[in-house]
């Protein structure tokens, strides 16, 4: 008899709870916009935060409301943008895949130190002490804050400089936001050349502390036929809307700080700069 009561009580309790939930589900029903779910289904779901929203759910909501562009997800690239565009009924133009590039070549041997840093392994902390331990005001501190924040594990520290793995980088831009020196830039994914220096110091000063710093000699500017590379603020920079990847600047640069990346005939992907 006792067991019957027990079973009855728990069945009753369970049923009561079930009914309560069923009723409240109807009662407190919040209409969910179907579009948000559809957009969410298109997104990669990495929740990297590269778009500036807390995650893919938040991004989907923002896109639906029109607060964010349909191309907001850089990680998904053209494919995702097109899928979202289809949901939203918007025509999506060409979407360029971007990748992050650390604009510094100052390895441990090449760039002179200001002091010996033995604090916590965090670039922001090191940057708070005289702008980091390198004499160059725009040099990579190399403690890996960008690597720690990269949602895709694409950044590693080599010889005291952060290096982005081209294959792994999704161009989300999280590292760009976390670099205290602001020397990580998003450039078109397939661009083969970049200037590995962002030092705004005068050529004479740069020469004194870094073997691979831009001295603003303007040789690249003169060599460039498409007018893509210009020197301003004592440093060369490439306008990727004009660059045709001819590589003439690479040959001319006396400091060898313009990098080239590309596949060789044997299929090997090589990233290199001209060395003296």
């Amino acid at each position, binding site marked *: 008899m006792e067991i019957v*009561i*027990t079973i009855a*009580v*728990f069945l009753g*309790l*369970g049923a009561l*709870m079930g009914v*309560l*939930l069923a009723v*409240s*589900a109807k*009662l*407190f*029903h*919040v209409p969910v916009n179907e579009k948000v779910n559809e957009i969410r289904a298109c997104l990669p779901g990495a929740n990297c935060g590269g778009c500036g929203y807390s995650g893919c759910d938040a991004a989907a909501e923002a896109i639906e409301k029109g607060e964010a562009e349909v191309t907001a997800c850089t990680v998904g690239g053209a494919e995702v943008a097109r899928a979202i565009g289809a949901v939203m009924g918007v025509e999506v133009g060409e979407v360029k895949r971007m990748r992050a590039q650390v604009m510094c070549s100052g390895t441990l041997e090449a760039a002179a130190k200001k002091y010996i840093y033995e604090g*916590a*392994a*965090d670039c922001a*902390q090191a940057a708070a002490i005289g702008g980091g331990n390198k004499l160059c005001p725009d040099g990579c501190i190399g403690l890996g804050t960008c690597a*720690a924040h990269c949602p895709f594990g694409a950044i590693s520290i080599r010889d005291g400089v952060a290096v982005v793995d081209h294959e792994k980088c999704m161009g989300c831009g999280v590292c760009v936001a976390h670099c205290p020196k602001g020397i990580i830039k998003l450039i078109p994914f397939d661009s083969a050349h970049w200037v590995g220096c962002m030092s705004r110091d005068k050529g004479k000063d740069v020469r004194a502390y870094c073997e691979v710093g831009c001295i603003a000699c303007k040789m690249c500017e003169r060599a460039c036929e498409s007018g893509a590379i210009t020197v301003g603020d004592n440093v060369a920079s490439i306008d990727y809307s004009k660059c045709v990847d001819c590589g003439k600047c690479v040959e001319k640069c006396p400091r060898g700080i313009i990098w080239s990346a590309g596949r060789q005939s044997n299929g090997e992907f090589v990233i290199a700069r001209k060395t003296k």
Partner: protein
Amino acid sequence: MGNIFLIMFAAILTENFIFSRFLGICPFLGVSNKPSTAFGMGMAVTFVMTVSSAATWAVYHLILEPLHLEYLKTIAFILVIATLVQFIEMFLRKYVPALYGALGIYLPLITTNCAVLGSALLNIQKGYGFGESVVFGFSSALGFTMAILVFAGVRQRIEIANPPRAFRGFPILLIAASLAAMAFAGFSGMSFN
């Protein structure tokens, strides 16, 4: 009245859920990587634990006790708490969307949290009345919130520290947590009897 304060003080400090009862260690380690998320979790736990203390007290004393089914309280409480959390979630979503957004993913996460169930069972074990149960649930959750917030602060420092390779990640976190627990053991010297 004095009794209520004793219950609060004990639940927050001397018998802290995390540092001396070792309940709710999963969210303690899982969502303590940032103070903001730790605070969100703490608030969600506080909310649910207070309400569930009241609900489970009622279920125990109004249903289980009269029918002599006390030995099934664990199962009954799990059922009640899970339902309650679901119900609260739906209710908040409809009527208090701001709070729903703030508690967000933490609400469903604590449906089966051992700290919530623990507070319900401890209420019965200690023979608390309704008011005392609610106060115990609320202040235990406050203790939980304090512990997870403190630890989130500690974690921010650990993350940029450079421990030996073997200790990186969770090992060093567990060591830090045990040190905090030892510090809290100091409170157990206080007696209010």
